[in-house]
């Protein structure tokens, strides 16, 4: 089964109280050098059939009409390979 990920983030011009709270807390915890933090949502969808263009178009529509409210949020649809952690450089917990 293939995994499609939809990342939903608040638009850059929209206030992100959650990201702000995290950012403000970091120096107090001793973490310096983080200039900005934005917090969003990550949806991991397990797709039953083939992830072809038609399926992706449907997921795109789903993201646009349901997973995100495009008045305030942007989203990105990504296909992940069978195993997670396909990003360029990844570190999981031990």
């Amino acid at each position, binding site marked *: 089964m293939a995994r499609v990920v939809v990342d939903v983030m608040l638009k850059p011009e929209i206030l992100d*109280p*959650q990201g702000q*709270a*995290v950012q403000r*807390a970091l120096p*107090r*915890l001793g973490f310096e050098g983080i200039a900005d933090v934005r*917090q969003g949502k990550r949806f991991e969808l397990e797709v039953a059939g083939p992830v072809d263009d038609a399926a992706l178009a449907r997921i795109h529509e789903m993201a646009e009409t349901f997973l995100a409210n495009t008045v305030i949020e942007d989203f990105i649809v990504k296909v992940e390979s069978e195993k997670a952690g396909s990003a360029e450089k990844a570190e999981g917990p031990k």
Partner: protein
Amino acid sequence: MTSRIGVVTFPGTLDDRDSLRAVRIAGAEPVSLWHRDKDLKQVDAVVLAGGFSYGDYLRAGAISRFSPVMETVVEQAKAGLPVLGICNGFQILTESHLLPGAMLRNNHLHFICRDQKLRVETTDTAWTADYEAGQEISVPLKNIDGRYVADERTLDELEAEGRVAFRYLDGNPNGSLRDIAGVTNAAGNVVGLMPHPEHAVEPLIGTGRTDGLGFFTSILKKLVSA
């Protein structure tokens, strides 16, 4: 000399005034504590009150845990200082690892506010001695992140050691594992629960019951006799 019970205010704490009032009604001296102060003003016990500290924006209690006041609370709790965490306070205690487990979004995803029936499972703590074991009480419940979870081994351990302090009755309101509403540490001085005893201390207010007063009279008796 009357016992002094401190109530911590974090940014976003909501039930601090209520907890101070409950302490006063029980007959102890309420003392306000501030999140930025490491100094606990020589109180005999501490209440971490409910609310949405730091908006609960990352996870409930996750940011408050790192406050100066918590450094002292954690240190002294380990040395026996009685600490009661109510709702957000309970969340801070789990985030600080003074109590096991974690709190997640309610299984129905909604904030829920209702009169909640509980069973007091142990009177072997600093905050429950005034109840009878197995006593059923009703106090308000109000939260959105109230689902208590821990791994099976931890849960079994808690049960075996009699550290499940309160259980939900008449229906689990949030999907908490094993109906757990509150737990205690092994020493019995640190207790956390999601429902709000401080909202049930006056006959006319809220649900009109005073079932929560026992928390505050328990600690008072313990302190006076100590």
